[in-house]
């Protein structure tokens, strides 16, 4: 029977299947951070259980860590400090791999995993974090889990799962200049809605996806969860293999050859069956921004703020609430919306290529008067590389705040937050109410669009700058 990529990875990881189709799915990599794990480790202790496969378990603190240059002095907020200390302790007690705050390899868990070669094609990867979908860029089945499931994976290295349905999202043709992976993934959510992927695993394919770097592919898969999908996948190819080769935990020698031979079989068969297919033309995708408080509230930058009357059903009330929260009037051109802050970073857009895109636009320019721009690399190694490439100098000369690695203002669990009603062009993944700070207003954009907004002080079509 022809299979999809998802079918192939799934079949290779079923450790047990009950009559009703409930499976025990074996987990190859378990990534752990400080926010969703303390209760799970506590559960193990109370039951006298051990971590089943400490060698396959990798922990790094990211959500709570300060990103200021003086963070070696420790974390001021007591609760944040306790959470990071708990991860330190748990990593030691259970002998799992660990990158502490002062390690150059520390960073956002979804950036560290691929960077260190923990994430490989054909694997199952989970983490107590919805943006685990990121790792699907390697052709790994990767998704977020709750804390009870974190405990379950720690104790058994398996997850109780039922299989999802298969959805194909094809992006045909080429992207126009100024259009990036972030615009693709937001445009898809704009089309499907935030519940459009519920019950599915998405495979992204087509020429525009093939043309993306691994960084771009990670951006696309990262936001599969924002479309409601359990996971997003991209079949591994030469781009994937080139990225993986030589990373610290990637296979070497004869094992590399054996792995590569299997990885090359990891693609959907030509006659595979899909439960749902969505096709977008790459040429028709424009740079996009969000105007509301759901990632599905997406429009091309050339558009205007919509009116509640443009919608039907429960969305009418939701749009009224969103426009009120965002302080926007229907009919306002999106490119007229002024911003107070710009945030570049997160597991969506905190990789080296994202920083290069920002630097390309910012080079020789200044951040607009009255706008604060925060640039937060996704890991210590990304920061180091950006400094070596001269990107950091461009950021600093433009007047941006160049910081240390962490989740930062994507979810604002550390002091990096928006003030009430402060408006931000952000490369992160969620524009929910209060996400970047109490009453803060978020417009999701690509790194290039974020840089353009920083220079002009309002949402801006980056195509005018290239």
């Amino acid at each position, binding site marked *: 029977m022809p299979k999809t990529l998802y079918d192939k990875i799934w079949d290779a990881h079923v450790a047990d299947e009950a009559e009703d189709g409930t499976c025990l799915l074996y987990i190859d990599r378990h990534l752990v951070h400080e926010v969703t794990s303390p209760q799970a480790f506590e559960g193990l202790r109370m039951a006298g259980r051990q971590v089943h496969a400490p060698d396959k378990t990798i922990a790094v603190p990211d959500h709570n860590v300060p990103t200021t240059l003086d963070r070696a002095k420790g974390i001021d907020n007591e609760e944040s400090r306790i*959470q990071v200390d708990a991860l330190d302790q748990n990593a030691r007690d259970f002998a799992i791999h660990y990158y502490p705050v002062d390690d150059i390899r520390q960073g956002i868990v979804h950036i560290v995993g691929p960077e260190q070669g923990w994430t490989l094609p054909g694997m199952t990867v989970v983490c107590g974090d919805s943006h685990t979908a990121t790792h699907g860029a390697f052709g790994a089945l990767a998704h977020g889990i709750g804390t009870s499931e974190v405990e379950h994976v720690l104790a058994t290295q398996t997850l109780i799962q039922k299989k999802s349905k298969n959805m194909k999202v094809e992006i045909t043709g080429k992207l126009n200049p100024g259009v990036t992976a972030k615009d693709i993934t937001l445009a898809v959510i704009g089309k499907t809605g935030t*519940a459009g992927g519920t019950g599915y695993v998405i495979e992204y394919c087509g020429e525009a996806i093939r043309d993306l770097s691994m960084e771009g592919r990670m951006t696309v898969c990262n936001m599969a969860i924002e479309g409601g999908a359990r996971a997003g996948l991209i079949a591994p190819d030469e781009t994937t293999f080139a990225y993986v080769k030589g990373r610290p935990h990637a296979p070497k020698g004869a094992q590399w050859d054996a792995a590569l031979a299997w990885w090359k079989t990891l693609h959907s068969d030509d006659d595979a069956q899909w439960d749902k297919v969505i096709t977008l033309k790459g040429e028709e995708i424009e740079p996009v921004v969000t105007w509301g408080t759901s990632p599905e509230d997406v429009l091309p930058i050339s558009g205007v703020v919509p009116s509640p009357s443009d919608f039907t059903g429960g969305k009418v009330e939701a749009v009224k609430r969103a426009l009120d929260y965002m302080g926007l009037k229907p009919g306002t051109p999106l490119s007229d919306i002024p911003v107070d802050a710009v945030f570049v970073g997160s597991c969506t857009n905190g990789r080296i290529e994202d920083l290069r895109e920002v630097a390309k636009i910012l080079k020789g320019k200044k951040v607009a008067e009255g706008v604060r721009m925060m640039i937060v690399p996704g890991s210590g190694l990304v920061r180091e590389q950006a400094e070596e490439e001269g990107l950091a100098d461009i950021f600093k000369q433009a007047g941006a705040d160049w910081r240390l690695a962490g989740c930062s203002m994507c979810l604002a669990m550390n002091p990096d937050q928006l003030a009430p009603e402060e408006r931000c062009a952000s490369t992160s993944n969620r524009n929910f109410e209060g996400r970047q700070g109490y009453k803060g207003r978020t417009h999701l954009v690509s790194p290039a669009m974020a840089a353009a907004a920083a220079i002009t002080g309002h949402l801006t079509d980056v195509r005018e700058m290239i």
Partner: protein
Amino acid sequence: MDKFEKLTGIAAPMPLVNIDTDMIIPKVFLKTIKRSGLGVNLFDEMRYDREGNEIADFVLNKPQYRNAEILIAGDNFGCGSSREHAPWALADFGIKAVISTSFADIFFNNCFKNGILPIVLPREQVDLLMSDAEKGQNARMTVDLEAQVITTSDGAEIPFEVDAFRKHCLLNGLDDIGLTLEKKAAIDAFEAKAAQARPWV
């Protein structure tokens, strides 16, 4: 985990669509290392003003809904993050069942691990339950998991679907990990086989 068998209680209507996990429990409350005590901060930014005073027209602040045990919610409830703090907060407040046309996948899974029953129904039936819930404390609904039937305050019966394994676990208050460890031999056998097939993992 507490058993879920049959529940008769007040249902609160929350028709807003896309109620996300940041709304259910904002991130400032994710810094806890415990599972308990989050109920007071459930829907915190919708429920309280900046000074911590209750916002009178928020549904769970209305006298008739303060003891609600069921939520009737708009589409795509629980979208967003994987934080299990969301069902912990709901459970700690006293919510034992949530009914909507759709739920986000991770939130849906997390509910079952915490003794909360999420029920998916067609729109017309959710609309009917929403109207019933709007009657306030006179509208006590019954959710019977064993029989898989919801009974409205008027006695109308609405059947619902639930995964058989999850139903079994909820009815008996079973711990997943204990059940999985009974299959340790299968896991060990899989591991041995996978180590041969994919030694680089």
